[in-house]
């Protein structure tokens, strides 16, 4: 498998459905040999982008290429790209084996290959059962079997763990990492930061069809996790003044939500301060210089999910649904804003 064969390049992709801009001048590169996470809130344009890469939808402008070719130019597409798209792509009345068989026949693969991929995903025993009766987990496995039919250099997976039980999630994760370890390109979308943090080596983050960030997962977590320090002291007002004087920001713990850890270990008698902009040692020195007693001094990382929410806050497509419903308006999507960082 040549390295260049697995390179996905999106250049200035634009896709508009009616008056809704789904993908707005999106450019990125997906490299072989690692799991690249495609992250964004629901409605950010992840599935649309995947469909544009696979040639199922036509972009208004821009190009998406795999190893320098558009999907339609690939000489034997399933040998280059295996795709598991979010929406079902199966006739429920057809058996798993016949579904894979017709796909294999289009490419000229031997029927024996169908049995190989059925073994790979553990569906051999139900191969002749109609897929309409399959559980979600089995359907996803069949989708992965279809994607692996051609031993492809590129694997596109759109929300592969959505709705799966923990066992299924673990299976998909291990599978993706194994596949990427063989030098293949794995491009996987998710709306869950926590899922991507444990699966992906590299991240492409989008919101409302725009690129928000493109970096390694580690860098992304480092950069987007806001550092803060929890301080508990009986002389909170004096310390807050000192912190402000030193360039930090202190907010009473009550203002923080339990979701970000603000409620953990809270002592009702000594309310805590959440300090940002100053490291823990500096806060300790400030307190010591004024002989302020500290009961607690805890450096904290904001949760990944919180960081992701903050980053994409402006780009959540349906976040405003409730307020719009109150006004009696149709919850139609707003035109994509240009307020992205």
């Amino acid at each position, binding site marked *: 498998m040549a390295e260049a064969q697995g390179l996905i390049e999106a250049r200035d992709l634009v896709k508009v459905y009616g008056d809704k801009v789904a993908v707005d001048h999106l450019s990125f590169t997906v490299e072989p040999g690692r799991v690249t996470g495609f992250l964004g809130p629901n409605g950010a344009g992840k599935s649309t982008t995947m*469909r544009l890469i*696979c*040639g*199922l*939808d*036509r972009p208004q402008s821009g190009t998406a290429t795999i190893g320098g070719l558009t*999907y*339609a130019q*690939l*000489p*034997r*597409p*399933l*040998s280059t*790209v295996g*795709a598991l798209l979010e*929406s*079902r*792509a*199966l*006739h*429920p*009345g*057809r*058996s798993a084996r*016949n*579904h894979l*068989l*017709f*796909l294999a*026949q*289009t*490419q*000229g*693969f*031997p029927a*024996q*290959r169908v049995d*190989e*991929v059925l*073994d*790979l*995903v*553990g569906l051999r025993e139900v191969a002749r059962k109609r897929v309409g009766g399959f*559980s979600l*987990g*089995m359907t996803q*496995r069949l989708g992965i079997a*279809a994607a*692996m039919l*051609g*031993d492809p250099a590129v694997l596109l997976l759109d929300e592969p763990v959505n709705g799966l039980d923990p*066992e299924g999630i*673990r*299976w998909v994760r*291990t*599978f993706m990492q*194994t*596949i990427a370890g*063989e030098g293949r390109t794995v491009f996987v979308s998710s709306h869950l930061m926590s899922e991507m943090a444990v699966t992906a080596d590299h991240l492409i983050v989008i919101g409302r069809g725009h690129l928000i960030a493109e970096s390694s997962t580690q860098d992304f977590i480092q950069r987007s996790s806001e550092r803060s320090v929890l301080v508990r002291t009986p002389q909170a007002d004096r310390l807050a003044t000192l912190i402000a004087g030193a360039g930090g920001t202190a907010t009473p713990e009550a203002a923080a939500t339990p979701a970000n850890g603000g409620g953990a270990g809270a002592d009702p008698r000594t309310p805590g301060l959440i300090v940002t902009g100053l490291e823990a040692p500096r806060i300790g020195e400030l307190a010591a210089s004024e002989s302020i007693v500290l009961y607690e001094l805890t450096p904290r990382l904001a949760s990944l999910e919180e960081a992701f929410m903050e980053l994409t806050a402006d780009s959540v497509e349906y976040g405003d649904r409730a307020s719009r419903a109150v006004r009696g308006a149709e919850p139609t999507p707003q035109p994509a804003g240009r307020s992205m960082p």
Partner: protein
Amino acid sequence: MTAAPAHAAPALTTHAGPSALGFGRLLRAEWTKITSVRSTLWSLFAFVVVAVGFSVLVSAVISHDWNAPGNHPNHARLLTDPTEVIFGTGFGLGQLAICVLGVMVITTEYSTGAIRASLLAVPKRIPMLAAKAVVWVVLDLIVSTITVFAVFFLSTAILRSHVDVTLGEPGVLKATIGGILYLGVLGLFALAVGGLVRHTAAGILIVLGMVLVVPPLVSLIPGTIANHIHGYLPTVAGALVAQTTQQSGDVLSGWQGFGVFCLWTAVLLAACGWLLVRRDA
């Protein structure tokens, strides 16, 4: 469900030849598709049962009532246009199953989402549609040929004691083969409509409307223009080829009518292909 080992897929053991997406492969794939869903089996079963059942029933009733008192218009028509009497009722109803299956061959791909799997495998799209049309029309023609000849020989055997209709008589073989060809083109016509609307219920409604509803409505309009419009309607024109002899009111001859039907179908299939390439799947 047991966990499968998440090892890598074994590499392909056999490598395909140089012509990456040969048309033969697409034909095999479409054959697998059409024969692996139950709607195909049931629709074709319904077609055979209705066509044979009603045709035999009509012949049996005519034979039974041959010497009964009263007017028998069928007796004269058995001499002038025997295929109309033999095929008319059974295939008039049976053809509806061909219409339904022709639509469903393509619309179920859209309703189930299987179209996405199909187009991921054949992204150029037109060869997929062409292979689908070829496989469907071949299946349609095979089943139609068997059914039409079965009906012909069963019905003529039942009527033999009263009137002897054979394939050797003028126009009878042409009309019989014409009936088979009509059923083949009708299948493609339905497929083209299904591919245009991409919705099972809407597709079936339009095709059945064109077969059952529109022709009698148009024929209600007085005047020669309406008569010509009626004569050029796809299934009205197409069915002319299944007549043994030209009828007085016909605007077109049998083969002209069949040509008109083929033209309608070709235009719709071309539109279907044009839209298939341009529309998002």
